[in-house]
């Protein structure tokens, strides 16, 4: 394991503190743990909180700020934060308009956020939440945990955040957040695994000529492994899976080409070249494209494609002002 760190025990803390020191005008850290809130609390709006394990930087702390989140809670690397951390975050940002939690669909995240909500509700705070589950790699089923929440979650932060900023009430913000959840799909792949600092070695091994398809964002193995192929073939494989899941034909979409952490922008642009052609051929109109590291897996090389089906309401909210460390619009 080769990392620019001091000690595996302090990775999360030093990272959060280092982030806050970089953007003191945007964010501050609560004393009680790795919980980041806006530098200037905004009253009179629904407060948005999200979070999860660390290792997905800039998610989620990078999305705290005007037009997006009010609070991000960071657990240990790839481990959901604990209920008391989340509860402290909720207490710090709660307004009389209530709190919306944006939770990625992982057993741990869901349970910890639920427990925190129970604690906050006992204090009289109204809390609602959405569970993002955009990853089409895994089959959805009533009898399983369902799908994972991955990069598409960033669209929920952006759009629900913009809605909250308008002063809309909790039900409205929740409705819009759920609309994004219902309309966004993601599929990813990896060229290399990543290493959780405390574990000291990669989550899986891949041969020089192998790639992992259907990868999540926690360094866990994907759905299957195959011989590496050309960028165009890989893009086609991922997009085939996405467009088979919900009907995008004739729709306008926002595209996110999300790097996993160690993927050079060069490769993401090469992928986008094909993504653009693929969608255009299918009659899917691209409204806006986002290329970069939005929801990473530490230093994994790989990427995911997210497609968000848009309507006029979502377009307006997607374009609305956002001023956060990692997302400006």
């Amino acid at each position, binding site marked *: 394991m080769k990392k620019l760190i001091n000690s595996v025990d302090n990775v999360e803390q030093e990272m959060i503190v280092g982030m806050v020191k970089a953007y003191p005008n945007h964010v501050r850290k609560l004393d009680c743990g790795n919980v980041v809130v806006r530098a200037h609390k905004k009253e009179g709006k629904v407060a948005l909180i999200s979070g999860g*394990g660390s290792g997905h930087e800039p998610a989620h702390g990078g999305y705290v700020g005007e037009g997006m989140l009010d609070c991000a809670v960071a*657990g*240990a*690397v*790839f*481990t*959901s*934060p*604990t*209920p*008391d*951390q989340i509860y402290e975050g909720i207490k710090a940002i709660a307004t009389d308009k209530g709190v919306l939690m944006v939770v990625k669909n*992982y*057993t*741990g995240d869901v*349970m*910890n956020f639920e*427990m925190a909500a129970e604690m906050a509700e006992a204090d009289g705070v109204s809390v609602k939440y959405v569970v993002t589950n955009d990853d089409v*790699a*895994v*089959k959805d*089923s009533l*009898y*399983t*945990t369902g799908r*994972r929440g991955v990069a598409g979650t960033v669209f929920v932060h952006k759009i629900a955040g913009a809605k909250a900023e308008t002063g809309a009430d909790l039900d409205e913000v929740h409705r819009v957040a759920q609309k994004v959840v219902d309309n966004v799909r993601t599929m990813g792949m990896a060229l290399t695994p990543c290493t*959780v600092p*405390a*574990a000291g070695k990669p*989550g*899986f091994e891949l041969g020089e000529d192998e790639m992992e398809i259907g990868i*999540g964002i*926690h*360094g*866990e*193995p994907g*759905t*299957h492994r195959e011989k590496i192929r050309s960028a165009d073939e890989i893009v086609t494989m991922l997009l085939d899976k996405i467009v088979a899941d919900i009907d995008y034909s004739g729709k306008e979409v926002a595209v996110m080409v999300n790097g996993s952490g160690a993927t050079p922008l060069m490769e993401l642009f090469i992928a986008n070249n094909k993504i653009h052609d693929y969608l255009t051929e299918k009659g899917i109109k691209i409204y806006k494209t986002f290329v970069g590291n939005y929801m990473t897996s530490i230093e994994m090389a790989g990427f995911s494609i997210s497609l968000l089906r848009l309507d006029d309401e979502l377009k307006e909210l997607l374009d609305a002002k956002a001023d956060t460390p990692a997302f400006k619009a």
Partner: protein
Amino acid sequence: MTDSNKVIEILKQIGEQIQMEKDFLTELDNVIGDGDHGINMARGFKEVEKKLADLSGKDIGSILKTVGMTLVSTVGGASGPLYGTAFMRAGSAIGAKTEMDGGDFIIGMEAAISGIEMRGKAHEGEKTMLDALIPALNAIKKSYEENNDFKAALTLGVEAAEKGIEYTKTIIATKGRASYLGERSLGHQDPGATSACLMLKVINSMI
């Protein structure tokens, strides 16, 4: 069967075993999860350890509840709320006793398991810690009811938990992270079932 002090000793020993098996548990989670189960449990029990000193003299219910709350607030992930809820529920069920017998243990373990089922919305056969815990509880109950020998019952419980671990190798996960792997989870044992069995083994060895 056992008193508050002994419960504290057992919990300490569980913590030590978790530290020792940390890499093994993590490795198991690496294969079908996200490679942190050992790290998570070790982090939690390190905090539990710190709390244990202050708990001597407390009743068993309070001890277990404190352990549960500590796990909830330090472990994170799926196992944090699950084990946390389990210990808290067990503590509530056993109550303010300073001595407990086999019957109390069974009542506590039943509460723990239904807490896990409630929190995790899972059942037996989904490749989780429940696949060690439920067969173990059934074996303990049956044997204890028939022979009234708790030590013997617990030994059978551990055997059942070990069989449960073996069973998790033969099924596809439908809960937790391993469920994302589909068929690929076959052939691998569940980390949470393994840590659950480890706890039962420690209890068995100390009673």
